[in-house]
C-alpha cells in the first residue's frame, strides 16, 4: 500500500500535486467569484495551439518553448478579447469564442507539420508522474507568484469582484485588478499543464472553488479551503491512479469532480438533499 512512497518519481509527483493543486485550488476562488469558468475553458484550450506553434517555430518540444507558446497564445487570445470588446460593440464572451476557436484551428492545422505526435499528446492530457526537478521548481516559482499576488491584492481584488463600481469609487484601480487576475489565471493554467494537460486543466481551476462555494459563505475559507481541497484531492488522486492503474491527470479531475458532486448533493446548507428535506 505504501510502496509508491518509496518511488522517487512518485515522490516528485506527490510534491507537484500538492503545489499545483494548492495554487490552482486557491486561485479557483477568484474564477468562481468572477463567474468566468467558461472563459477559463476557452483559455485552457488555447494553450494547445500555442504549444504546437511553439514547436513549429523552434523545431523542438522543450519545457521552455511549450511554456512560452502556451503563455503567448493565452495572452494573445485573452487580451485580444479584451481589446475587441473595448473597441467594438462585440462583447468579450463572443470575442473570446471567435479568437480561441480560430487559434485552436490554427493549432490543429499546424499539427500535420509537427511530426512528433506523441509528445504533443503528453501536453494535451499531462502526466504528473513524469515531472522533473526543474518542473517542480517552475511550479513552485509560479505558485509563489500567484499566492503572493493574490494575498497582497486580496482586498482590492475582492472588492472589484463583488462591486466593481464601489471599488472604483473607493480608489481601487479596477481595470488593473482585472488584468492582474487575468495574468495570474494564465500562470495558473500553465502550471497545471504538466499535471493534467491543457484540456483538463480547467477542472483544477474551477472545481475546488465551486465545491467550497457550496460549503461556506466566508470568503477566506473559500480560497484557503479551495487550496487545501486542490492539494489533498490531487494527492488522493495520485494514490488512486497508482492503486487502480489509471492515468494521473484524469484521476485528479475525477476526484475533484466527485468532491463537487458530493458537496452539491450533501452540503448542509446548499446541498440538493438538504434543500429537498427543507421543502
Amino acid at each position, binding site marked *: 500500500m505504501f510502496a509508491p512512497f518509496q518511488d522517487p518519481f512518485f515522490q516528485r509527483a506527490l510534491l507537484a500535486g500538492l503545489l499545483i493543486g494548492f495554487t490552482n485550488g486557491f486561485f479557483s476562488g477568484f474564477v468562481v*467569484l468572477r463567474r468566468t469558468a467558461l472563459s477559463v475553458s476557452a483559455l485552457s484550450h488555447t494553450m494547445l495551439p500555442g504549444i504546437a506553434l511553439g514547436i513549429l517555430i523552434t523545431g523542438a518540444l522543450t519545457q521552455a518553448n511549450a511554456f512560452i507558446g502556451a503563455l503567448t497564445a493565452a495572452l494573445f487570445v485573452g487580451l485580444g478579447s479584451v481589446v475587441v470588446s473595448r473597441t467594438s460593440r462585440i462583447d468579450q464572451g463572443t470575442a473570446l469564442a471567435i479568437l480561441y476557436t480560430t487559434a485552436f484551428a490554427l493549432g490543429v492545422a499546424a499539427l500535420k507539420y509537427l511530426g512528433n505526435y506523441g509528445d504533443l499528446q503528453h501536453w494535451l492530457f499531462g502526466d504528473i508522474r513524469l515531472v522533473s526537478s526543474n518542473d517542480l521548481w517552475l511550479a513552485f516559482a509560479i505558485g509563489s507568484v500567484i499566492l503572493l499576488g493574490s494575498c*497582497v*491584492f486580496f*482586498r*482590492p481584488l*475582492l*472588492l472589484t*469582484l*463583488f*462591486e466593481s*463600481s*464601489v471599488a*472604483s*469609487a*473607493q*480608489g481601487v484601480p479596477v481595470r488593473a485588478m482585472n488584468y492582474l487576475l487575468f495574468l495570474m489565471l494564465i500562470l495558473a493554467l500553465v502550471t497545471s499543464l504538466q499535471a493534467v494537460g491543457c484540456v483538463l486543466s480547467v477542472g483544477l481551476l474551477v472545481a475546488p472553488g465551486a465545491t467550497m*462555494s457550496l460549503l*461556506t*459563505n*466566508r*470568503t477566506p475559507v*473559500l480560497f484557503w479551503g479551495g487550496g487545501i481541497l486542490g492539494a489533498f484531492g490531487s494527492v488522493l488522486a495520485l494514490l488512486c491512479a497508482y492503486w487502480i492503474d489509471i492515468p494521473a491527470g484524469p484521476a485528479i479531475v475525477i476526484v475533484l469532480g466527485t468532491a463537487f458532486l458530493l458537496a452539491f448533493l450533501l452540503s448542509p446548507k446548499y446541498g440538493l438533499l438538504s434543500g429537498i428535506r427543507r421543502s
Partner: protein
Amino acid sequence: MIRNVEVSYGSVAALKDISMATSCGNRVALVGPNGAGKSTLLKAIAGLVPRQGGSIQWRGTAVKKWSREFAYLPQREEVDWDFPITVSGLVEMGRYPHLGLWKRYADKDHQAVEKALQTLGITDLRDRQICELSGGQQQRAFLARALAQEAHVLLLDEPFTGLDRNASESLAHLLTELSEEGRLILASHHDLESAPQLFNECLLLNLTQRDFGPTAKVLTDSAIEKAFAQAPLQASTTETSNP
C-alpha cells in the same frame, strides 16, 4: 456643495448644470422621471462616473474623484446577492479604504465593524450570507458598511424600492436617526407621495436641474407636472453630438 455638474455617456448628455448647496444633517431626495439622471448624479458624486464639468466641494475642499467620506449604496439589482460573503464580511469591507493593501485588520477596525453592526441592529445576523436577509435587512447591512467606513455622506440609489411597508418605515426611521447624528443623506427616490415625509430637502431634476430646496416647497403639483412632462431623451443630445 455641488456646482454646475455635467455628465455625458459618449455624446449623450446625462446631466447638465446641476448645482446645490446642502449640509450635514439633511436628507435630500433626488426626484425626477425615469432616465432623468438621478442615479447618474449619485454616481458622479461618488466618483463612479467621470464628470465632464463642474465641481463638488465637501467641507471646503474640492473632491477630485472620490472621497473616503462618501459611501455609495447601489440599487438592489446591481448587487450580486449570491456572492459568498457574510454580513460581517460585507461590513468589514467598509474598513478597506482605511486599511489599504498592507495595514493589518486591527482592534480599531474590529470595533468600528462591531459598532456599525450594533447601530444598525444586525449583530445577530452577522454570520448570515447576504442573500439570506430580507430586503430591509440587506439595506441595513449595506448601511452598516457605510458606517464602518466612517462615511459622512450616504449616497443611496433607490433605497426604498422593493421594501415592504414595515421595512420602509424602519428604514425611514433609521435614515432620520443617521441624519440627526450629523450625516448627510442623498437618495434617489421615485415615490412622490412619500418624499415629503422622508426627506427634508429635494432636488427636482430632468437632465437639468428644475428646482432645489425644502421638499414641500419644491414638490408642488405644477413643478412636478412640468418636470415630468418632458421625456428625458428629448433633451439628451449634447451640442457636440453629430446630427
